[in-house]
């Protein structure tokens, strides 16, 4: 009897996993997010109940992803740090208003997108008009972003080539219109679902789709120019 139940459970979970499995290239499964959501909710409730220490957990949990969103949107390492700080601060201030209708992470990433958008507006279209210089790429380590090397075994030349390519790609992203930039970052780099993006940007599903379509085509043109061939 128990064996039958176990098999039945496995079948169910397999079906469920199949049904929710996203396409290749997306780093976060829905299942994983639901887990996060549950864990977040616990700490969010603590924060809302006047326990500021619980916010630290949320900071540690989400700061890297938020930083990456900010970095890819602003195209600037320092700006991204400021944006993340501001976003966390305003999240902290407004966490009491978070009703739990959406996932906490969606709410939080919406805040960082908003702050990154504001930062982009403040810095003007600086990065838009000044594409990344290929002759003088920002140094890694202290001055610039430290990328995770794909593998420790990768030859130094490959690392350099890869780094250069990535900078070119970022340069192309920076050259996009702001609206296109944020949708590319959220969908194609961060892998958020349309629903999540809808929640973060406050735009309808159809707009996400059409904007993404235009953004990808624009990026395609840019990348073709920057990289020669895709």
């Amino acid at each position, binding site marked *: 009897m128990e064996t039958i139940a176990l098999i039945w459970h496995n079948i169910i979970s397999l079906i469920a996993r199949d049904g929710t499995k996203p396409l290749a290239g997306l780093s976060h499964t829905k299942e994983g997010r639901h887990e996060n959501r549950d864990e977040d909710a616990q700490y969010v409730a603590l924060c809302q109940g006047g326990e500021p220490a619980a916010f630290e957990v949320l900071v540690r949990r989400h700061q890297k992803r938020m930083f990456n969103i900010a970095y890819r949107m602003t195209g600037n390492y320092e700006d991204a740090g400021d944006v993340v700080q501001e976003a966390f601060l305003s999240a*902290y201030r407004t966490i009491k208003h978070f009703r739990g209708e959406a996932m906490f992470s969606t709410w939080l990433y919406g805040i960082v997108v908003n702050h990154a958008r504001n930062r982009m507006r403040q810095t003007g279209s600086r990065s838009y008009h000044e594409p990344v210089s290929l002759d003088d790429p920002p140094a890694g380590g202290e001055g610039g972003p*430290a990328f995770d090397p794909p593998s420790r075994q990768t030859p130094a030349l490959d690392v350099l080539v890869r780094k250069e390519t990535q900078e070119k*790609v970022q340069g192309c992203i920076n050259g996009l219109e702001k609206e296109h930039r944020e949708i*590319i970052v959220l969908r194609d780099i961060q892998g958020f679902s349309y629903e999540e993006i809808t929640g973060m940007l406050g735009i309808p599903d159809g707009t996400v789709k*059409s904007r993404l379509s235009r953004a990808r085509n624009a990026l395609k043109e840019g990348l073709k120019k920057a990289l020669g061939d895709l």
Partner: protein
Amino acid sequence: MRKCRDIEDRFTAYLDGYLETAEREIVEEHLSRCPDCLHKIEDLKRIRAILADLDEVDPPPGLTAKILSRIHEEEKTKAGIFHRLFFPLHIKIPVQALATVFVVVLTVYVFKSTLHETANLERPSAAPPAVETVPDAAKKQAAPAVKKEAQPGRRPGSISPKPAPPATQTPKKEAAAPPATAQATDTAAQASPPVRAYKAAPHPAPAAERASSPERHTDDYLSYSKAPPAPEAGRIKTRGTVMEEKGRAAGSAPMAPARASVPDVRSRITMMSKDPRQTAIQVKTIMRSLGATGIDESAADNVATVSGWIDAAALKELMARLKEIASVDERNSSLLSGPKSSFVEIAIRGSGNDDAVKPVDR
């Protein structure tokens, strides 16, 4: 061509897995036949792969600490704001409540005390007789003594408010005031001595003596008028009321300046009693039984005053009932009924004073 554009529109949804099975099949079927579209979608796939392959960037090492320290600061300032906003609130609310209660109590107290004072001071109905003539005013001083003989004849004259309606604060009356005051000052020279006598010597004999010597009265008046400012003396005389003078003399409390808020309708009844305080209690009982409100009592030397608001309809009954308990000096009484209720002030004088006044009149 149009077909290609339709298919291209679905590329995004197709790549992201947001197409229904049927639509996906349509796209795939088209891609199998159209190399252009296939090329395009391959490009898009590659772009997606490039973007998905972008390395994650490590945030600067101190970022977490920075965020947390900023939140800590926020918490501090929030606590500061919290304190500034709410801590005083705990104190402020009781303070404000206390202040409100204090203001209310003060208002009630001031109102009550001024009501009492005005009840003793303001006698608009007495004003007209005062500005008539000297003899008239003198007679009034002696009124208690002559009340019985004079009652039928003089009562209308002294009570009637017709010559100058009481407390009509019209400019016309204001204009007429100065001459009246001047005249009254003269009157005062003669009118005041008997009154002063009450203060100086409450016994009948000395009072009579003093009343019979005009020079001394004048001196008395002059010396008296030196203490309070002259205009005030004049004003008091203008009212020309024995009771008031007596009240002043006996109470010896400095009077508040004349108030503009004299009740429009004010009845005054003067009574004689051997025991003014006892009578005052009876009067209060009567007033209460007649439904009077705001009953107030004050007692000075040999004079008890009861005041209150009474229904105009009950005025006559009040008078009748008062006559039952003690003699009413109708010469010094005036009954004025207002539209609804009337302010009544009943002064009960000790009958010993009657004796003091009687010789003056005779």
